[in-house]
Structures are given as C-alpha cells and as structure tokens.
C-alpha cells in the first residue's frame, strides 16, 4: 500500500514562510529574513525530492526484480483531506461534491520538481540581487506566497482546487510586478497583468461550470474515467481500476469543443498567448528574479500544464486542438518578430518567452503533450538562466537595461558571460543542448501531424530562425564589441547570484539528455501514463524524416547565428541602415504591431467611457447617489420639523413630559375600561351624573 508522502507540506511550508516574513519580516534582522525566505522553499524542495525518490526508485525496483517492493509508492498518489467538523468534502452542495485532494502523478511530479527546484535557485539568487533593496522581507514573503499557490495549482486533484492556485499565482504575480509600486509604470503593469488575466480566468471559470454541468464532477481522474473506453487521438492510458461509463454519459462533441475553447482562453491568459499576451512584456517592471521565476519558468507555463492535465478532453475535440495549435504557432512567430526590434534586454527575453510558450501550445495542439511538457522543462532551465544572467548583467551595469548602452561585457563579467552563452546556444537549438531536443520533438510532432501539420512545422522553423537571430543579437550587443557607455563600471555579481547561474547552465546543457531516444526516450516513457504517448509517424520512414528535420533545424539555428554575427558584430552599422531603408517595417516592429495601441483604442477607452458614463454617472451618480440623497433628505426634513421641539425652554420640556404622562394615563384608563366605545360610554356616563 502507499505510504504517506506528506505532500501537504509542499504548499504549506512556503506559506509558513510567507506568514512569518509577511507579518514579522519588517522587524526581523535581514539575516533572519533571508534564512526564513530560503529555508522554507528548501524544505518544500526536499519533500518533493523525497516523493520523487519514493516513486521513481520503487518503479525501477519493481521493474528489475519484477516483484512488489516493500514500501512502494505508486502513481497516481492521492492525498485527501477531510474536515471532521464540516463533512468529508471541501465543498458539499447536493450534487456538487468537491474534495480537497492533492494528486501526484508523473506530470505533476515533474512540474513540482521544476517549480520547487528552479524556485529554490531563484530564492538563492534573490539574496544577492535584492540585497540593497527596500522591502526585502516583503519581497521574500511574496515569493514564498507564489510558491505556495503554484504548488497548490500543480498538486490540485480537481479543477476547482487548481483554479484556487491559478488565481493565487495571479495575485502573487500582481504583487511582484508592482513590487516597486512607487513607480507608476510598475503599478500600471501590475494592474494590466491582473486585468488581462481576468479575461482569461473568466473563460476558465465558464469552462469549469460547463465541466460541472456535463460531468457532474471536477476531479481529473473521474473525468478521465468517463473516457476510459473511448480513446481519442491518443490511446488514453489510465491509472487504476476504472469503470466504463456508457457513451451517453459523455458530452456531445460541440460541448466538448466549447469546454476546451473556454479552457484555452484561460490558458492563453495565463500563458500570454495571442490575443492576451500583452501583459507579459509589461510585467518586466518587476524585479528580474521575479521575471525569471514567475514570468518565464513557472507561472506562465501553467496554461500548458493545464492543457496537458485536461488532455483527455482536448483529445476528443479536434477543432479545439487545431485552435490550440494555431494560437501557439501564431504566437510563436508573432512574438519572435517583435523580439527582433526590442532594445530592452528584459523585453527581448519577455517576447522570447511568449514565443517559446507558443511552441509549447503548438506541441499540445498536435497532441504531443509530452513534447510540450519537455519543452516546458527545458525552457524553465534556459529561460530562468537567461533572465538571471540578464539580471546579473543589469546588476553589473548598475541598473542599465538598454542593450544599446551595453557591449564588451565579455571580459568584465566572465562567469555571467559563459552561463549566458550556454543559455543562448541552448535556446537557439544547438545540439546537444536542452532546447535542441525539445524543440526538435515539437517540430517533428508538428511535421507528422496530418492536415495543416506541415504549415505548423514551417512556422515553427521560421520561428526557430528568428529565435536564434534575436538571441544572438542580444548576445553580441551585450557582450561583444566595444563598451558603448562609459558611465557604468561593470563588476561580477556576488556568489549567491553566480551559483544559481552555474547550476542552471549545467541543467540547460544536460537537461535535454533525458529525452534522448525514440519518442523522447525515457522522458516520454515516464510521462506516457499521464499525458499519453507521443504520436508516431504512420509510415515506417519516421527515422529518416526525423534526422532530416533535425538537420534542417540545426542549419536554421546556425543561419540565425551567422546573420546575427554579420549584422551585430562585423557590421554593427548595418542594422541601422536597414531600419532606415525600411522605415515602415521597422516602425511597426518597434511599436510591437501597435497591438497595445489597438487594444487601447478598441477596448480600453470605450470600456473606460462606458464605465464612466454607466457606472460612474448612471449607477453611482444617479441611482446610488439618488438613494443617498433621498435618505439624507428625509432625515434632514424630519430633523427640521422635530427640532422645533427642542426649544431650550425648560418649562416646555416639562409640559411635554406632563402631557405625555397624562396621555399614558388616559390610555391605560381606556384600556382598563375595555376599548374605546365602552370607555366613551363610561365617560359620558360619568359626565351625565
């Protein structure tokens, strides 16, 4: 039987850190704040590692000796929490039963390892990066809060609990983007991220309601169980003993598609896909480690995770899958072109993140979920590294983020340079670095996908070229050539920032090797029970096609390097000339296709005007104000009348008092005599005699 892994500790430990630093942090010495801020994520990481060893080693053990191990913990592992005083379930409303359960399978274990592992490294990095900042304790408490919600999101056993984590990471993201809240741009960026995410969350919420209406349950395993006998595009591999549901228990194809599209809207909001990507570039207003953790490695991949988690549904809706692929491919290409013309080092990386997330969506859209998750993992390594290295560069330049003012930093900050180099080559897809394997798997899966698969592959290939181009552009502009600004005195960062860089560099180089082999090798086999196997080519010539595609992808990456080398190292004046030759194209790219401006005029301003008129004037001014005015008027009027009684004259008060007493007396007399008519009679009787 399963022994307890104490998964509840994974979210709760960072939460304890959040409470301690959030409440007491301002009064504690900095060393203690650092200790609290780092030790709780570390403890959480250790619990996750324990769970990983307990499950993985047992799996290997049973495989070798072909017998059940003594203390085996097998997937899927579920922890349910009963609340003794409120019944067994978290929410129990008639037919709506939602339990509070944590669910650990291959997919969530992998995500947990990435989240807590990269999260811990970034906590370490933050010690050095945030050393001189105000609000040090606040920063660490927010970061711990993020880890709490992210692990809840990943471990959730049902959609509703996932939604709790989903909203929670949005909150943490908002708080951290607006960390420098005295700067208006940062506060605005936080608001923008929150509001744009709200649009996506609206879709997610509708999706949850539809799920509940059509399945009557929100638990992942139960939803998957309904499809147990009805394989979609993939043969769905399910864990445990599950009963076959009759076909009529399944929602219709149209309803499934509607659910999937709603969920996709939620995923597009969180993962910054078209058309909701606009918040992510602005989110770079936050501290750089936050950009690395939340806006590159973990939170923004929640959308991909969600789609992979709900893949059973998507498998049954080819239309929705196609939409996912189209959104992913379009975002990948679109964001990559925008990344070309950016001059802010962090914004280049932000557009790169959007573009890479597009790859992951593309992978999910061609039903290659494990390829998408694989890219998610490698991306977490190299993009976190890119951001942290960029943070180290910014740190070295004394806060300068403009690429045009950098240059020649290679000699000044060698460790940052070499780790950044590893990351740049990794993201560009050079073998045998991490993204080579994951990007290749996605491109291959797209290529063999029927229908429009070749188009997706081509878009992916062009994006790969652009990726290589803008990454090497950044690399050359920052590290090569002559220093373009003499104000800064670059210096290498402290060890607490360099150690995470080195670890992530090693992961960026070696992280892809577990995916070596057919169908992503051991990685694919490991993930297959929870996300399904990778689609394989129908014909037997799969191997040759894959090799050719791989060679093409590598050539494209090298081409990107050569172009960047030509324009940004050997002829640094050429880019400006080209920009001058095609001012229209250049302007459109620099202004990011005017999407922000378009949203501003088409959505934000009309909405603001309607709000001002309808909510501000009609609701607030006329209705609420009117009611308040009416109530106030009544009180005023009655006061004006009643105040005449308060003459200040003692004798008038006394007279009222006496009159009142007399009235009471008369009343009681009448009551005693038995009502009005009888008493009138009595009085007249008395008067008569």
């Amino acid at each position, binding site marked *: 039987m399963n022994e307890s892994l104490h998964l509840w500790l994974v979210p709760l430990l960072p939460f304890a850190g959040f409470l301690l630093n959030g409440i007491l942090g301002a009064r504690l010495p900095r060393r203690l704040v650092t200790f609290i801020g780092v030790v709780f994520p570390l403890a959480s990481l250790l619990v996750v590692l324990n769970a990983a060893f307990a499950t993985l080693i047992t799996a290997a053990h049973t495989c070798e000796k072909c017998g059940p191990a003594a203390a085996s913990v097998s997937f899927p592992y579920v922890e349910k929490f009963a609340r003794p005083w409120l019944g067994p379930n978290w929410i129990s409303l008639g037919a709506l039963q939602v339990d509070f359960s944590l669910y650990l399978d291959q997919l969530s274990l992998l995500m947990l390892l990435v989240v807590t592992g990269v999260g811990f490294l970034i906590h370490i990095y933050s010690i050095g990066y945030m050393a001189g900042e105000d609000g040090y304790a606040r920063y660490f408490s927010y970061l711990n809060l993020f880890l709490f919600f992210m692990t809840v999101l990943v471990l959730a056993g049902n959609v509703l609990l996932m939604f709790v984590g989903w909203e929670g990471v949005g909150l943490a993201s908002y708080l951290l983007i607006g960390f420098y809240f005295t700067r208006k741009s940062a506060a605005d960026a936080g608001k923008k991220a929150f509001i744009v995410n709200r649009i996506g969350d609206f879709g997610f919420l509708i999706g949850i309601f539809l799920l509940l209406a059509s399945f009557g349950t929100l638990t992942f395993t139960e939803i998957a169980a309904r499809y147990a006998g009805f394989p979609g595009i993939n043969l769905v591999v399910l864990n445990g003993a599950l009963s076959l549901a009759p076909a009529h228990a399944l929602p219709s194809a149209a309803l499934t598609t509607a659910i999937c599209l709603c969920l996709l809207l939620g995923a597009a909001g969180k993962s910054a896909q078209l058309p909701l990507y606009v918040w992510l570039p602005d989110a770079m207003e936050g501290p750089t480690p936050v950009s690395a953790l939340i806006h590159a490695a973990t939170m923004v991949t929640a959308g991909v995770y969600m789609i992979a988690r709900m893949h059973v549904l998507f498998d049954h809706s080819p239309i929705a899958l196609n939409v996912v692929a189209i959104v992913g491919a379009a975002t990948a290409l679109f964001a990559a072109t925008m990344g070309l013309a950016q001059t802010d080092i962090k914004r280049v990386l932000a557009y790169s993140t959007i573009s890479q997330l597009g790859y992951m969506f593309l992978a999910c859209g061609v039903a290659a979920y494990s390829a998408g998750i694989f890219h998610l993992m490698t991306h977490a390594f190299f993009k976190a590294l890119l951001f942290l290295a960029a943070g180290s560069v910014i740190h070295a330049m004394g806060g300068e983020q403009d690429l045009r003012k950098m240059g020649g930093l290679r000699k000044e900050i060698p460790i940052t340079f070499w780790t950044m180099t590893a990351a740049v080559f990794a993201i560009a897809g050079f073998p045998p670095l991490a993204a080579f394997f994951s990007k290749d798997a996605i491109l291959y899966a797209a290529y063999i996908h029927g229908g429009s698969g070749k188009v997706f592959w081509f878009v992916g290939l062009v994006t790969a070229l652009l990726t290589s181009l803008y990454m090497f552009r950044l690399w050359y502009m920052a590290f090569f050539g002559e220093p373009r600004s003499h104000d800064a005195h670059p210096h290498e960062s402290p060890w607490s920032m360099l150690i995470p860089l080195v670890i992530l560099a090693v992961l960026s180089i070696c992280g892809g090797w577990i995916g070596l082999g057919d169908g992503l090798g051991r990685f694919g086999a490991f993930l297959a029970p929870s996300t399904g196997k990778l689609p394989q080519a129908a014909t037997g010539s799969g191997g040759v096609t894959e090799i050719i595609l791989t060679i093409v992808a590598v050539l494209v990456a090298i081409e990107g390097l050569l172009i960047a080398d030509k324009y940004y190292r050997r002829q640094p004046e050429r880019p400006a000339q080209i920009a001058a030759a095609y001012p229209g194209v250049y302007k459109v790219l620099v202004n990011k296709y005017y999407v922000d401006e378009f949203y501003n005029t088409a959505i934000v301003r009309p909405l603001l005007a309607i709000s001002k008129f309808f909510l501000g004037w009609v609701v607030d001014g006329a209705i609420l104000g009117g009611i308040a005015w009416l109530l106030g008027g009544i009180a005023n009027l009655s006061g004006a009348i009643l*105040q005449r009684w*308060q*003459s*200040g*004259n*003692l*004798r008038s008060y*006394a*007279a009222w008092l*006496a009159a009142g007493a007399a009235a009471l007396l008369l009343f009681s007399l009448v009551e005693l005599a038995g009502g009005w008519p009888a008493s009138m009679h009595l009085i007249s009787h008395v008067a008569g005699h």
Partner: protein
Amino acid sequence: MNLLQQDVPLTYYLLLSAVLFSLGVIGFLIKRSLITVFMSIELMLNAVNLSFVTFACQWHAIKGQIFVFFVMMVAAAEAAVGLAIVIAIFRTRGTLSVDRINLMKL
C-alpha cells in the same frame, strides 16, 4: 395606635397624594425661579412617597415602604447635586430665571 388604622379612608390619602403631585407639576410649569422649580420636584417626589406608603399599608406589602426609603435617599442626593448646580448656574449666569437658561436647543 396606627394612624392609618383610624377611620380616615384610604381614598383620602390617595387624593391628598394626587393634589400634592398636581401642585408640584403646576409649580414646575409656571414658576420661573429655578429654586422653586426644584422645590416643586421635591413636592412631586413626596406625593409619590405618600401613595407608596398608602398602598403598602393597604396590601400589607413591605416593599412599598422600602421604596419610600429609596426615593428619600435619591431625593437627598439629588438635592445636594441639584443645589450645587443651581449655585454654579447662578455664579456663571447671574440669574436663576428658567426662561433665561435656554441654551439647550439647536
């Protein structure tokens, strides 16, 4: 020999109490001097005391008698506080006319 056990009927005591109370009310309403108003209050209190005693005797209930003691005690305290206020008012305003002491209004 108890006064109340003589031939004077109970009603007379109550009538006396009512007359005294009414006199107190009238005095309170028409007199201008604060001292006289004050004395009228005492008169009303004692009229009530008389009814209490009367009823207590009628129903052989000792509670009525006890209430009278309470009222007398409160009246004594009230007289002390009230006269102190009267003196304070006279010192600050130089008058004790009720019509002139009319600041408690809007």
